[in-house]
């Protein structure tokens, strides 16, 4: 586990090179994704539309539909993978995903309540964000009230409880919702989708994700120490409680922002940090950017599939699970290299 902690301080060149290479690949992928879509456009037409020239229909497709989607896929993928890497380090457990503390369940409940009340889309997204933040807030609050020696275990257990509670409330609303026009919308939302993303949806989420990423980047060394355990952290002069609180708040902000935007997209935050760890090792300073970059690329590919596989949209959650699950099994079968 401690393999990366010392190397961390001065980012060694191999890590930097790799992260640079990932960035280049990502730009290439994004460029490719803008080219792909059911509306037949040649790369030349896409380029001229990007430059604001050519057919107005092509410009609508590129600027109003493809670019917001590509941007949203990059943002959501990066955010979920970064949050996943953070939670996995914090809880010292490779099976942790960003929704461990109930953020997805809370956001789901908020959004479902919004759909149930027939609110406008922006209000549904707002309700999802508030729901996600509130769920984790409750978990933290209950966590401070429960006196236990193992803080992380307590938090995880309370997270499970709050998540189950929010899930029950969501189910109740689903039963009560109008199955003709609300239930399909709820189901679709809970499986995640970028189908109706517009630039207006991305703009509020982007600064929130950045605000959440900054403390994670600044506290990378402390997160490494925390992942050794509370006692070791204390021995190294780090106040585990406060750092953990800041890190959880930041990761939750990131997850809730993008969940409000895209719905509940599973698997990215669970699987991607493993791949990143295989590539750059467990040191959080490199793990965070690597996870974000790979996550962005992964979700971009998945979303491009979602919008071009069939005449109808395939929910993102379905695809990430179908692709992610076998991959995860394969990772497990190979042994937990990154966690040695």
């Amino acid at each position, binding site marked *: 586990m401690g393999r990366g902690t010392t190397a961390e301080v001065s980012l060694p060149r191999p890590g930097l090179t790799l992260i640079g290479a990932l960035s280049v690949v990502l730009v290439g992928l994004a460029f490719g994704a803008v080219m792909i879509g059911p509306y037949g456009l040649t790369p030349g037409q896409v380029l001229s539309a990007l430059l604001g020239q050519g057919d107005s229909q092509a410009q609508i*497709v590129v600027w109003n539909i*493809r670019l917001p989607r590509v941007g949203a896929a990059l943002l959501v993928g990066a955010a979920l993978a970064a949050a996943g890497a953070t939670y996995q380090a914090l809880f010292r457990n490779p099976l942790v995903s960003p929704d461990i503390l109930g953020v997805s369940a809370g956001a789901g409940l908020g959004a479902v309540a919004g759909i149930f009340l027939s*609110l*406008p889309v922006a209000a549904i997204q707002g309700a999802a964000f508030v729901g996600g933040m509130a769920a984790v807030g409750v978990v933290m609050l209950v966590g401070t009230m429960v006196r236990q020696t193992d803080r992380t275990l307590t938090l995880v257990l309370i997270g499970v409880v709050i998540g189950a509670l929010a899930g029950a409330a969501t189910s109740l609303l689903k039963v009560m919702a109008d199955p003709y026009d*609300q239930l399909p*919308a709820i189901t*679709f939302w809970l499986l995640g989708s970028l*189908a109706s993303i*517009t630039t207006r949806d991305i703009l509020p989420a982007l600064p929130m994700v950045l605000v959440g990423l900054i403390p994670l980047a600044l506290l990378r060394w402390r997160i490494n120490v925390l992942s050794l355990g509370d006692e070791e952290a204390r021995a190294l002069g780090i106040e585990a409680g406060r750092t953990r609180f800041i890190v959880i708040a930041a990761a939750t902000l990131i997850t809730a922002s993008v969940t409000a935007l895209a719905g509940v997209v599973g698997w990215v935050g669970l699987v991607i940090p493993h791949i990143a760890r295989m590539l750059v090792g467990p040191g959080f300073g490199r793990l965070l950017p690597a996870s974000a970059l790979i996550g962005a690329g992964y979700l971009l590919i998945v979303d491009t599939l979602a*919008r071009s596989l069939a005449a109808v949209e395939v929910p993102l959650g379905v695809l990430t699970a179908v692709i992610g699950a076998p991959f995860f099994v394969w990772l497990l079968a190979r042994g937990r290299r990154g966690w040695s």
Partner: protein
Amino acid sequence: MRFLLMILAVLALPVQARTVTDSAGRVVEVPDEVTTVFAAGPPASVLAYVLKPEALTGWPRALRPEERAYIAEPYRDIPETGRLTGRGGEANLERVLQIKPDLIVDFGSVRDTYIDLADRVQEQTGIPYLLIDGRFDNTAEALRILGEALGVSERGEALARDVEARFARLDALLAEVPEDARPRVYLARGPEGLETGMKGSINTEIIERAGGRNVADDGGATKGLVNASMEQVIVADPDTIVTWDRNFFDSVQDDPLWQGIDAVRNGRVYLSPTAPFGWIDRPPSLNRMMGLHWMAGLLYPDLWQGDLREDTRAFYKLYYHVDLSDDDLERLLAWAEGQPPK
């Protein structure tokens, strides 16, 4: 309103566009000539098909074999386009743009979420998006609005009058029937028949409209579809059951649990045909006008003067653009008698 629209249309003549006000009060600019229309969901596809089939760009889902005979030939094989984002949310906006419809129309809920979604899609794609209220009582108005938008206002007006005449005919009959003498109807959905729509939900509006009382009535506390328990059905003890689910229809006669129900004891369980669209629901659209007469005949066999055979033939001709062959008509009537095609 129509007068105002006509003035607007005249005023807008030099420019290549006119405006239509939809049920949500949105003023939407539509092209002078609308030759293609994209239906956002099944109810809208029925409405558009009834008004101007040649403009319909696709069905939300492909027709099933048993439904094909009841749709006019040229429109049986138009592509499957899925539902548009929002209501079910499967269709891909880019595909919609590729189809390049002059107009997108949605028929159903006009609540805030849908208004907002309509605005977003319109803004994103630049295609005018009309939102039309799908309540049963709004049927005539819906025909007028979309007829106007599609440039077939005469057909829209003619059908709207027909709808109003059908409603008026029923109202005249129902005026003589006091509320507590009306049949107590249960609309059974799902293979077990335990799914139903509460009174006032869009899926069961036809019960009240045809002169029945929906037994699923809690005074308006719940709306929409609900799951009932067998015990609740036994307590409600409906005297008439309607369904379009063939599995339920087949099993209810032998299921010991249902034997005590008034409707089952007296053989008053009815199966609605679903070709090309359901007669009573599925989707909740213009197709319900067909079920209205059928149900009136079931609920008031003595009072209702109607010949289902001629009624059906005329309805399919006027609304669905098909001259039913005797075989096709026979199959439909047998279906309505409880013998669906295998």
